[in-house]
């Protein structure tokens, strides 16, 4: 009886240009052919993760267009009369923490009608002044995103303030590249007409599974951004965008 392990593959299904790429594949034999004793048998195994060629071992990641997935398959070959048995399961790869601390990169921001882009009729906008800062745009993936936001004044009542975490997947190949952004988390930090001049905390935990350290390879990129979305009572929607760099410590 044998047990065959490992058939990891990286699928990169994006526009028709990229086919799944296998980055690792190794097989080991767990048990020599023979008979298993009756009852429950546990067979320990281990193997190193050796990459194919000069490929890099990426973290497990499930995106819409980019998927990095590692699976483990166990086959049990049996005699002629019995069917072979197969079982597959996914395992998660976390990369080791990167060396050194990321440089903290605080950002201050001010949002007023004047700072906005792509506004059709600037005159119809109510007056407002929103100030704030993010503690850092270089984020450790296990730590929350933090900062503060102050509504200094606003003519229209505030309806809601939200933090929108967006993931940007970019795929490049011979025919050019494709880029697509998806919202992966939306956190409301203010509900209703908040008190003017009172700092409101910005705080967001990065969701597991949907985030990974920012990834840049020759074939594809996975990047993250956060939008601060202020919704006013007359349905004006104000968005301020901040690119983030995530890493694992």
């Amino acid at each position, binding site marked *: 009886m044998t047990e065959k392990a490992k058939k990891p593959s990286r699928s990169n299904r994006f526009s028709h240009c990229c086919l799944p790429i296998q980055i690792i594949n190794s097989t080991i034999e767990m048990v020599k052919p023979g008979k298993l004793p009756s009852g429950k048998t546990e067979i320990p195994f281990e193997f190193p993760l050796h990459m194919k060629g000069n490929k890099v071992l990426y973290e497990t990641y499930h995106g819409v267009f980019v998927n990095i997935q590692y699976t483990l398959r166990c086959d049990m070959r049996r005699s002629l009369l019995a069917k072979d048995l197969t079982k597959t399961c996914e395992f998660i790869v976390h990369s080791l923490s990167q060396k050194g601390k990321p440089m903290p990169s605080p950002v201050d921001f001010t949002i007023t009608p004047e700072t906005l882009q792509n506004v059709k009729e600037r005159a119809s906008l109510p007056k407002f002044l929103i100030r704030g800062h993010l503690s850092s745009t270089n984020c450790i993936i296990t730590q929350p995103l933090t900062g503060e936001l102050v509504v200094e004044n606003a003519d229209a009542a505030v*309806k809601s303030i939200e933090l929108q975490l967006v993931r940007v997947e970019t795929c490049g190949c011979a025919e050019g590249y494709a880029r697509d952004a998806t919202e992966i988390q939306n956190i409301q930090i203010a*509900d*209703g007409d*908040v008190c003017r001049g009172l700092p409101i905390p910005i705080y967001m*935990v990065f969701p597991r599974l949907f985030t990974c350290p920012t990834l840049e390879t020759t074939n594809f990129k996975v990047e993250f951004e956060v939008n601060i979305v202020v919704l006013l009572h007359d349905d004006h929607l104000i968005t301020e965008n901040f690119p983030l760099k995530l890493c694992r410590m």
Partner: protein
Amino acid sequence: MFLCQYACILSLYSCFLRHARSRNYVSESEVCKLESVPLDFGDYHPLKPITVTESKTKKMNRKGSTSSTSSSSSSSMLDPLSSVLDGTDPLSLFAAAADPVTTTATMDSTRKKRDKDDSPAVGSDFEPWSSKRGEILARYTTTEKLSINLYMGSEKGKAATTGSAVSEKVRTRLEELDDLEEGSQKELLNLTQQDYMNRIEELNQSLKDAWSSDQKVKALKIVIQCSKLLSDTTVIQFYPSKFVLITDILDTFGKLVYERIQSMCVDNRVSLPDNFSPECVNDTAKETCLNWFFKIASIRELIPRFYVEAAILKCNKFLSKTGISECLPRLTSMIRGIGDPLVAVYARAYLCRVGMEVAPQLKESLNKNFFDFLLTFKQIHGDTVQNQLIVQCVEIPLYLTLYSPAIDWILQCIAYRAPEILLTEMMERCKKLGNNALLLNSVMSAFRAEFIAARSMDFIGMIKECDESGFPKHLLFRSLGLNLALADPPENDCLQILNEAWKVITKLKNPQDYINCAEVWVEYTCRHFTKREVNTVLADVIKHMTPDRAFEDAYPQLQSIIQKVITYIYDFSLLFSVEKFLPFLDMFQKESVRVEVCKCIMESFIKHQQESTKDPVILNALLHICKTMHDSVNALTLEDEKRMLAALINGFIKMVSFGRDFEQQLSFYVEARSTFCNLEPVLVQLIHSVNQLAMETRKVMKGNHSRKTAAFVRACVAFCFITIPSLSSIFTRLNLYLHSGQVALANQCLSQADAFFKAAVSLVPEVPKMISVDGKMRPSDAFLLEFLCNFFSTLLVVPDHPEQGVLFLVRGLLNVIQDYTWEDNSDDKIRIYTNVLHLLSAMTQEAYIYHVDKVDSNDTLYGGDSKFLAEINKLCETVIAQILDHLKTLGKEETLKRQSQLALYFFNTILAHGDLRNNKLNQLSVNLWNLAQKHGFADTKTMVKTLEYIKRRSNQPEMSHFTDLALRLPLQSRT
């Protein structure tokens, strides 16, 4: 063979009485008396009261230990009751359960646990949330229709309306959490308040169900949906109650999660100690815990995210030591994002509540919460809030009162064991803000009463300065009054405070506002001042409440005023000298309330009145009050109610005493009888009282009545005689006849006594088969048997009436017994006959076993006259014939056991009262003995004992014939 034996027995009966054993009662009693042992009072005595010292029941409850904490004063013994009850009597157990410290937790185990956790920093002097919740639910109510929107389905429909920046497809994925059951979108409109509460309770139940059926995700969804309801401020006056209801669910959820994770930490069946450190927690538990936090962190909306995280705050203990102390400040500042000031302040109150429970030592976040609230205080007067109020048609003063429970709670948490300086600082901060009445009120209700009381004059000053249009001023005075009822202000200020406060209170136009204030201040007045001031205050209340019959809407408050007055003034002569007290009572015009108040007063009287009284003021007033109670009784009054009223009136009657003025006393009883004629227990009490009065008279006269006292005693007897027939319970009547007859006899009113006994005899045929005892129908024969035995015992000393035949009463009674329809298969009649034999044998003695002082019984009257004895013998024959007849009818298979018992009973009677030297009687007894054993139904033990007794008796002088008897009595072995 049988028949022949019966015939034999029958032929023997007639000789019984002629040979009644003559007795010398004095010497017999000498012989039989128990050896008297000198009693050492220092020693323990089984009936000596045991002092059970109860070490705090709370501890018991918490530990659930099995060791008994009771200790009795005599160490040699243990009270069997207390040992069975494990030292905690059930009442104190209940009391402990109702102990405010133990919160309303549904599960006992958790209550214990929580208690333990609380104990280090929060003592029993911290008024727990559970005691507030009822108050809030009762106060913040609405008649408007409510709605519950539970978007348990996918959120598609909502997306457009929320207008948030989330794209549709992502939303579906992210808010999977929000789905309760796929596609079920519930929107319940037009709910009344009660419906709403029921719905919430249903949700609470479905949360528990989901949890116990391992649907953790569904449980989380329910909690999220519930906390979402807290962001909805439509029907704003109901918001505080809604908060209470929903946070109950959150508490349940928090507890469930905590217990679940805790149960995962059980290693080798050893559960975690209470002060565990995060290192002891295994990885699976930690991972589960983290999972919960991650899930909650991804809840989109702010308010549910905040509430759910706060609910499981305690779980941080599993992850790290500093977890809670890091979370609290973060959650505190998170609340800043809540725009609606009312929603925000309640969120703060919830955080403080959880904080106090989980980590009471972390005071900073409590303070920060309050300061943050002060910062947002100006919002209340902002446009957003004002617009909302206009839409909902809610006035500002009403709106402001909605804040009170939350601010009160926050301040109470802060003020708990806080240093004086902090309180002063808080007060200063509140002062600085404009329209601080709301805060001032909360300060007064949350801070220590002593603190407030010491600064009463300052507070009065501040209250006066408050803006008229804002928070209702009478509420401020009310709060101040509540503090002053608990703690004393500086002595010099007492009067000034009352004057200042009352000046404002008396000007209140709205009777409801006025009475709410006055109710509180009455206590202060009673506490510090004399009846003059109390009188003034009562007069003022009357003045305010009388126009337009305003008192009709204020009965609870008025009632509470009365209660306070009688708590402080319980000297009733003083109380009734408060002129306005009785006029005040006149305001209670609704009968049910009036009776309630009367009951209170009477309870207080019975509790506090130590000595009996004849003060005409008290008597008049209380008679009036009792009459009010009595007059409320009608056909619909419940039995319990009647019993209670009667008990109160009886308590009053017992307290009335005119000393040696017996005639006045009797006339009082006569008056009472006419006043309270509808309450039987009172009439019974009156009969007993009058009987007692008669005996008292006898005692004073040392048994020798003068002409005057004899007439008085006859009046007493007459009182009883005419009162008894008005009672309905037949046994009460029988016993009272007998009792009164005895009293009459003791007072040498022979013909009256005869009348009583005759009445009793003629009443016996009316005894029903079944009587109601404590609401259950029971056969009456046991009661009748008991009464008849008692009656016969009395009849021994009743002298025969000169104009009636010998033993007129005994014969009469026997006839009645003969004619009474007894239960078919009962031997009661025969038992009574056997007992009659005892009486008859006692009657033949030369000197009776007991006498009534100064009354000649038949022994003296007849002096052993042979005609008299012959009469008795004749009676005996009849009775014995009856007994033997009955024995014969019991010869059937199924009644043999009864036959055996009766035979033995009869045998014992002969043994005790008959003269067994007579051969025939001797033979009869031997026959009875054999009959008792004949069919193997006799109890061998009893037979052996009886035989032993006979043998023992045979050793005594003049009893040698017992030896022969013993020889003639064979013992039948069972085999």
